[in-house]
Every structure is written in structure tokens, then in C-alpha cells.
């Protein structure tokens, strides 16, 4: 029967062309939505590389009306380092604090810092932050090779850094990155030579943008508050003792403002920041999915109309099939099967196009496996959609009285 229907559909290919094109375009739209969903929710299942529970982020900023005055940049950087050192000490003394670290950019924050380097003719981009030694215990980072930076790196001619596996792979390929320097294009000739950035360890992951983002190359540079070459961090990440109530944040802020009068502070649990970042990522995706769903609805209505008309046009054929032994169910199944054959052809073409997508998405953000999963999901969705669209015309066709159908003009 399938072969018979395939021949019928093929012989009617001209009249099926528009429907096929409509299904093909729908497939591609659903594929994009499916791939985004697959990658997004696939990423959400991956480890972020750190623990957010019981961690609070404190943002420090110059109080309103305060300014650095007419001191040089170096003087001001030195004062800021000193203020941060005092702030960290004050926080660590508080009952309820397990550890605290200074950090340039905390996870899930709105800002980001990026470096771009040429390595063997390839441009490599990576995100980075700068942090004091205690970040390891505050975020419970997992070092998988080498070591975390520490006082062992004091006074060295290089700046210690810990990188993610992705960055290590991008820059060093299969080689052991520990002990090697990250390539640096160098600053303008008039600036003094920058310190080398030495990889001392590798962490399993550090997905700091949001829970739905892919694991990206990332580096954490060491900040030594006693080193004039390093800038002062502007945030403090604090690991609280489990069960510490939320109102502890107020105590934290009051203590910090009493310690560093020139700065103002705001505190927020890292879990809250993470959830806000996740929402920011999800809202446009959901909006896109809604637009896609609306388009699908229009396609579904159009398709139902075309199939309905098709059934009416073929009333006599339905009558003939009933006269030669087709049951009502045979007729309904035929209507659905014919649409599914057109769908299969459109999905084959669309699938061939969709599976090329990883070649055109930069940065390896779309893997062949994700494209395959997306295409499979889109195919399933399209078969379900076209099946649903054909169900009502199929039911109508099944209800056609064979005697009337044979007389239909």
C-alpha cells in the first residue's frame, strides 16, 4: 500500500509542490527552535564548574560624591588594593563567613571581559576574570590538572592563571598546558612589556555567563593585593556557613561600609544572580519559540485547508476506493499517509540542509550530534503536525458515503 501511495504522491508531485515547500520551511523553523532547545537544555545539564549555594556576591563602588581627587592612577590603584584588603579582612572576621575572595567579575554578572589572541594563525577568544587566591574555596572550584594559584606565585616574573579545559584545548591542543604561557599579542610599543601569563592549573569548567550557555574558553588570572602591578577587584564573593539567614547580607554591607567608608556595597546571593541571568537568556528564546509556534499554527491552518479541499476534489476517487473494498479507516489512513509521504520528502531535503548547519555556525557552538538531535525533533514535530492537520480531512473523507461519492460531480 505504501508503494502505491508513494507512486500516487509522486505522480501528483506538481500539486504537492507548494505543500511540500510549506512543510520544508516549517521544518527549518522547527529545526532552529529544536536545536536551540537541545543545546540550551543540554548545556543546563552540564556542570557549571563551581558551587553557588551559600555564596553571596558583594559589589563595591565609589560612594556618590566621592572621587579619586587629583591623585595619580597608580596612587589610586594602591589605595583601592588597600581598601579591598581591609574589606576582605573585615568580612572574614564575621561570624558566619567561611571564606571570602576578591574578584574582578563574579559569575552571572552583567559585565564580561574578553581577550583575543592569534594562535598559529587561528583567532582564539576567551573570557577572563581576576581573583584572589581564596576563590578556589569560595566557589569550590575543581582543579583537574596542575594546581590553583597561591602565595607560591608571589614575586614571580609571571602572572599565574588557571584556565578551563576548553581554553587549554584551544590554545595548547593535546599538550599539557601546565607551566606554559598563554600567548599575548602584546600592547602598543610605547607601553612597557606586559608580564607573561603562566598557566599553573586547569579547572574542570567555569561557565559563568548563565546556566544555559555553552562551556567557553575561560581564564582566571591571579590578583595579588600586595602587587602594585595588579588592579584591585571590585567585588567580593563570600561563602557563608550553611543555613546563614538572608538578613546576614545587611550585616555584611554594614560591616563593609563601616570598614571602607569611601565605598558603597550591595549584596545578593549568587543563586539569585544566577536565576536572573537564566531568565535574561530564556526570555528572548521563549519569545522566538512563541513566534515559531504562531507560524506553525498558520501553517497548520493553511495545510488543513489545502487537505480539506484535496479531499473534496477527490470525492469520486474515495467513492471508487470504497466500492473496491476500502473501509472508512483505509480512506482516513490514506489521507494521513499521503501527507506523511510529502512530509518525509520535505524532511529529507530539510534534513540534508539542516545537517550542514554545524559547518556554518562559528566556534563549534553547534555540534553534529546537536544538529542531528534537532533535526530528529523537528522531523517528529512535523510528522505530528501534518498528521494532526490531515486527521480532520481524513475523518471527513472517511465519512463520505460511497454511494454519494460515486455520483459526485
Amino acid at each position, binding site marked *: 500500500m505504501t508503494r502505491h501511495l508513494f507512486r500516487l504522491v509522486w505522480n501528483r508531485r506538481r500539486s504537492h509542490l507548494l505543500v511540500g515547500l510549506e512543510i520544508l520551511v516549517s521544518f527549518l523553523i522547527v529545526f532552529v527552535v529544536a536545536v536551540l532547545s537541545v543545546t540550551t537544555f543540554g548545556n543546563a545539564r552540564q556542570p557549571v564548574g563551581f558551587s553557588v549555594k551559600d555564596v553571596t556576591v558583594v559589589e563595591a563602588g565609589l560612594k556618590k560624591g566621592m572621587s579619586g581627587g587629583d591623585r595619580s592612577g597608580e596612587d589610586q590603584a594602591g589605595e583601592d588594593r588597600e581598601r579591598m584588603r581591609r574589606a576582605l579582612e573585615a568580612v572574614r572576621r564575621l561570624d558566619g563567613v567561611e571564606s571570602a575572595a576578591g574578584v574582578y567579575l563574579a559569575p552571572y554578572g552583567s559585565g564580561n571581559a574578553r581577550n583575543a589572541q592569534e594562535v598559529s594563525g587561528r583567532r582564539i577568544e576567551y573570557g577572563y576574570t581576576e581573583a584572589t587566591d581564596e576563590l578556589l574555596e569560595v566557589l569550590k572550584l575543581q582543579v583537574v590538572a596542575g594546581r590553583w594559584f597561591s602565595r607560591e606565585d608571589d614575586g614571580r616574573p609571571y602572572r599565574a592563571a588557571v584556565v578551563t579545559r576548553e581554553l587549554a584545548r584551544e590554545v595548547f591542543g593535546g599538550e599539557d598546558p601546565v607551566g606554559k604561557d598563554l600567548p599575548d599579542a602584546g600592547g602598543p610599543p610605547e607601553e612597557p612589556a606586559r608580564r607573561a601569563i603562566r598557566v599553573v592549573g586547569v579547572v574542570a569548567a567555569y561557565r559563568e555567563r548563565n546556566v544555559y550557555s555553552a562551556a567557553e574558553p575561560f581564564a582566571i588570572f591571579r590578583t595579588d593585593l600586595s602587587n602594585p602591578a595588579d588592579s584591585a577587584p571590585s567585588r567580593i564573593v563570600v561563602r557563608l556557613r550553611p543555613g546563614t539567614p538572608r538578613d546576614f547580607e545587611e550585616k555584611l554591607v554594614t560591616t563593609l561600609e563601616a570598614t571602607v567608608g569611601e565605598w558603597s556595597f550591595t549584596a545578593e546571593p549568587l543563586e539569585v544572580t544566577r536565576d536572573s541571568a537564566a531568565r535574561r537568556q530564556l526570555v528572548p528564546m521563549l519569545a522566538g519559540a512563541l513566534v515559531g509556534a504562531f507560524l506553525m499554527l498558520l501553517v497548520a491552518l493553511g495545510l488543513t485547508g489545502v487537505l480539506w479541499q484535496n479531499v473534496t476534489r477527490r470525492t469520486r476517487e474515495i467513492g471508487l476506493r*470504497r466500492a473496491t473494498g476500502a473501509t472508512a479507516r483505509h480512506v482516513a489512513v490514506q489521507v494521513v499517509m499521503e501527507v506523511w509521504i510529502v512530509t518525509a520528502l520535505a524532511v529529507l531535503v530539510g534534513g540534508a540542509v539542516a545537517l550542514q548547519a554545524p559547518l556554518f555556525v562559528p566556534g563549534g557552538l553547534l555540534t553534529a550530534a546537536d544538529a542531528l538531535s534537532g533535526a530528529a525533533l523537528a522531523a517528529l514535530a512535523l510528522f505530528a503536525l501534518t498528521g494532526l492537520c490531515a486527521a480532520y480531512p481524513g475523518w471527513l473523507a472517511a465519512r463520505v*458515503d460511497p454511494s454519494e461519492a*460515486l455520483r459526485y460531480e
Partner: protein
Amino acid sequence: MIRLENVEKVYRTDRIETIALSNVSLDVAEGEFVSIMGPSGSGKSTLLHVMGLLDAPTKGSVTLNGRKVESYFDAALAKVRNAELGFVFQTFHLVPDLSVLDNVEVPLLYRGTGGKERRKRAEAALERVGLSARTRHYPSQLSGGQQQRVAIARAIVGAPRILLADEPTGNLDSATGDDVLDLLKDLNTRERCTVVMVTHDERQAAKTHRTVRLFDGRPVS
């Protein structure tokens, strides 16, 4: 073979009630060639559709090969139509997008016959009607007479015991119509196929074993 007892068929709409058949009783014996005649609107086609289980009578009973079929549901009726009945229509009812061979195969699809066997039997049926050279053609490439032969091949491909023909020569010129009638006659004579044919043509009716005349849905003598 076919027995109709006090068959009545009434078509009802919101406003009108049309009596298409009224108190029709008829017996068709195995191997008979019966023609049904009557003016337009006399209920000839309705009678044929009731015999062919395409339409259920409003009253009365239909017995086919000794089995009363009024209690049959859709699937059982379809099975009987497929196995025991073959239809030939005035307007051929060929599927225009299928080749001659594919058109002839249609009844076998609903019998679950395998592809090779379908092909073999369809080719044999086409040879029987003298169209074995046209298997790859499409209906639009054939003359009216050839199309009706294809329709007859489709009707006999499943080796039914009863052929129901609704004005099979109505759209054909007289010479071609005679050829088609000769073919039906040959099927009746050589293959003991029971044939019931609706016709307007007295000359053709005269070639059948018996003529049933209808007027306003009632048999007249």
C-alpha cells in the same frame, strides 16, 4: 445469488423525502446476466448501489450468497465488496494519476495481496480485456472504450462472482459500446460471472438473459 426482499430506499433532507425504491423484491441467480432498465430517476442506480452494498436500504433485506448483510458493519461490508463484487461505472472512475496497471491493482490493495502477485493478476486482467499493451499508459492517454476496458479489468482482477455495471456503455459510441457489452457477455458465459447491468439501451438489454424494468422506484412488468 442476490436476493432483495421488500427493499425500500428513501432519501430524506430537512424538507423533502424522496422515495428512490419502493417495495422492490428481486432474485438474481448465479450465472445470470440481468439488465435493469427504466427512465431517468426511476431508481436503477440506487438499486444497483443497494445490491452492491454501497447504500443501505431504508427497509427490507439484502441477501448475498445466502448471507443477510444488513447487520454487517463497515469493515465486513468492505470485505464483501472487495471479494465478491466488481463494479463498472458509466464514467469509468479511473484514478487519473495512476497508470493503467496501478488502477487495475486497486482492489487487490485492500485484500493485502503482495506486490508481485498484484502485478501478475493485474496484467492477466488487462490481457483478458485486450489491453496488455497499455499497462504503462495513463487514463488520459486512452480512448473512452479503452478506459472502460481498464475499468472492467479492475472489476474482474479480484475474481468476483458478481459484476455490477452502471450504464457501462452510456459514454461510448455504439460500436465501442457493443464491444464492451460483448466483453461482459463473454465474462458471464465463460467465467460464470453473474452480471447485473443498468442500461438505457433496449438493443443491449435484449442481449441479456432477463430485463427488470423500474418506474418510480417500483418494478414493472
